[in-house]
């Protein structure tokens, strides 16, 4: 396929935009302010309309200033209301969003009916974005400002890290928490204003929130999170714009957002460590380890008692299926030998079982001696437990055990 220079500029612009959104989003995610982006994006609408009514033009500079001012106003309100009133953060966010967006829509109505004409359609375009129809100069402008903001964030990495995780330490290290905070909010506002014409009022928040949330699955480190989040943002900007330019009837904003969502789902499933599959496997293998340990311990006990009874019958708590699996796993690992009648531990299996048993004894010893938990309370049989715990509590605990079993 052919990529015209015009498309190339637009692609570069939206990639830079995605990068910038990813970086800012990572900061907002760490500050637990992800939804602030949504509120700010929605509340740019009245600013744009007022700028349009006052400036009387559709020039991006005029509308951008209006958008930026109302974005800053809403960010200030959201952080200021919970501090001086009893309104909480979530309610403040939702109220500012609802009221300002509503005001914006009322203003759009006024503009449409006051006969300012075709330009009102342009304001409508701001709701959903129009990357495909983006002018080359606009794309260039957005790209450059996005790159500049990315540079600011990268160069202030250390200060931002401190303000995200430990603002008090920041104060002691002479990092002005308030100005950094303000800088962050302004960066968010500016990013959103830049992203508006491309992805629209409603979906700008997605471009800020999703890459960061996706990046969070891959890492626990700040720098890496910034990098991955920026990368995911850039990738979704690029892929989304490409796709929407291939199918001219698809608006760019939603496509960009869905590309980001796809990357999010991939991260959610596949990321090592925090990803869902990896977590699930960890949980399973931990459970299996424990069952095998108990199984080996059971054999060890029967061997110590020198009874030759069939070991399987000494496992009342486990089901036959689990027993069979344990049997398979253990014999595959060379921990037990089986003949037609009996199951026997190999030396290796015996060593493991003894080690596990010893560790358990040491743990019990620590609980009694160091953590001073009464020895009688550690190994209890069922009658004692029924005596000690009130029936209500037993019910509740049983329910939580069942719950854990099913989930």
């Amino acid at each position, binding site marked *: 396929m052919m990529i015209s220079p015009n498309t190339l500029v637009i692609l570069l612009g939206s990639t830079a935009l995605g990068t910038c959104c990813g970086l800012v989003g990572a900061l907002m995610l760490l500050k637990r302010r992800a939804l602030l982006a949504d509120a700010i994006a929605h509340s740019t609408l009245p600013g744009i309309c007022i700028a349009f009514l006052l400036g009387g033009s559709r020039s991006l500079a005029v509308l951008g200033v209006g958008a930026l001012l109302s974005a800053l106003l809403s960010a200030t309100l959201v952080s200021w209301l919970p501090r001086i009133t009893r309104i*909480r953060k979530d309610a403040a966010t*939702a109220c500012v969003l*609802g009221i300002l967006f509503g005001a914006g*829509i009322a203003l759009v109505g006024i503009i449409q009916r006051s006969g300012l004409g075709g330009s009102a359609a342009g304001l409508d375009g701001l709701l959903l974005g129009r990357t495909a129809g983006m002018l080359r100069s606009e794309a260039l402008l957005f790209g450059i400002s996005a790159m500049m903001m990315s540079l600011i964030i990268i160069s202030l990495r250390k200060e931002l890290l401190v303000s995200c995780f430990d603002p008090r330490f920041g104060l002691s290290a002479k990092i002005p928490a308030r100005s950094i905070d303000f800088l962050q909010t302004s960066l968010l506002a500016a990013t959103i204003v830049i992203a508006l014409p491309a992805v629209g009022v409603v979906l700008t928040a997605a471009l800020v929130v999703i890459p960061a*949330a996706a990046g969070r699955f891959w890492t626990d480190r700040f720098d890496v999170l910034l990098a991955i989040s920026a990368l995911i943002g850039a990738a979704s900007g690029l892929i989304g714009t490409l796709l929407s330019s291939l199918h001219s009837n698809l608006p760019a904003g939603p496509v960009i957002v869905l590309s980001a969502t796809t990357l999010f789902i991939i991260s959610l499933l596949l990321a090592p460590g925090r990803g869902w599959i990896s977590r699930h496997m960890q949980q399973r293998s931990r459970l299996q380890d424990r069952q095998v340990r108990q199984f080996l311990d059971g054999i060890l006990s029967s061997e110590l008692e020198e009874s030759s009874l069939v070991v399987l019958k000494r496992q009342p708590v486990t089901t036959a299926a689990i027993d069979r699996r344990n049997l398979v796993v253990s014999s595959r690992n060379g921990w037990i030998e089986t003949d037609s009648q009996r199951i026997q531990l190999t030396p290796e299996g015996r060593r493991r079982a003894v080690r596990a048993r010893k560790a358990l004894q040491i743990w019990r010893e620590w609980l009694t001696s160091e953590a001073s938990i009464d020895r009688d309370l550690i190994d209890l049989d069922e009658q004692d437990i029924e005596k000690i715990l009130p029936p209500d509590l037993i019910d509740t605990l049983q329910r939580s055990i069942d719950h854990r079993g099913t989930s």
Partner: protein
Amino acid sequence: MIDLQLTPVSWQIMMVAACAAAACGLLGVQLVLRRRAMLGDAIAHGVLPGLVIGFVVSGSRDLFPMLVGALIAAIFVSILAEWLREHAGVDGGAALGVVFTSLFALGIILIEIFARDVDLDAGCVLYGMVEYAPIHQVEWFGYSVPRSLTPVLGALLLNLGATVLFWKEWKLCAFDPQLARASRLPFQTLEQGLLVLVAITSVACFEAVGSVLVIAMIAVPATIGHVLCDRMSSMVIVSTLAGVVSAVLGTVGAIQLETGVPGMMAVSSGGLLVGAVLLAPGRGLIPAATRNFSWTMRVEMEDILAESHLQSMDSPPDHTDSAGAPSSRFFRILATWLLWTLGYIRNGIPVGRGERMARTLLKKRSLWKRFAAERMGLASDHLDEPAHRIEHHLDDDLTRRLESGFESEED
């Protein structure tokens, strides 16, 4: 004079809007108390793909299939966001943000693909069409009412019923979730039920008034209630009333400015919220500022009176420079002017009531110094500053008790 020109059509619009606002306001209380006000926003956006799929599957603009689709989508939003938070370790706000924005994007694309040529666009989801409510009429017991009144009124009655029925349970879940879990309440079911109600409400209101309004009407009236009230009962009433009042003001404003009703309703609810924040009795910004100001003035005036009284008695000057409440020059000058105007001080000497105030204050000061020295064993050079601070706070009762305490000791 504004000519209100409330035609029957306006009344009908107002009625639909008021029912929608009241329905949202009732549920908003529960969400605001649970710190989940943003859920309204999320669900209002997230229902879009459900609406479109319902539309595509049924092939008509019938309300029912779209409602079902939207309801499923709304429940999907809340369950998915919850799952991401609980089982995938995503931050709560971010989880919600990811889910509803993605669904909204999906909805727009579905519209572009399947429903391009019909009258269903994202704009009408956002803005709603309450202005057109009176066009479609249905007969109710011989009265002709707007068709969209049915779902909205249904949602209102449903929410009202649920609020009354689950009053105690919801209250417990909102204020003490741990206790609710421990006390054998079906906690999960109750919370899920609330989410389903939010979904039903936003879907029912969508057709009539648009999702903007759902966002604003879930958050704002309940927040007004939260600012003004200390009890859930009064909060529910205030929130519902605030919703209805914004509907009335919004409709009137929209007619005056010739713009959309939902937007104007959001704006008027915003006006009410600003009013509540500024004027709430006791903790509003203006009452609080007034209280602070009058307190500062009283302390300043008492200090000035006491100082000048001591000077006029030629007593050794008290070291008041650093002691006492920190004050600015502005308040000091204002207090001096006020004292002079009131006639409490003449030629630098307290007279009349001013003199009495100065004496009282000095008495309190010495009482407290004595108390601090004798009972609390403070060193003599530590007596002045706390005395200067506390003298303004000793009321008559406490003063009497200090006095009588010392007297009984002397006896």
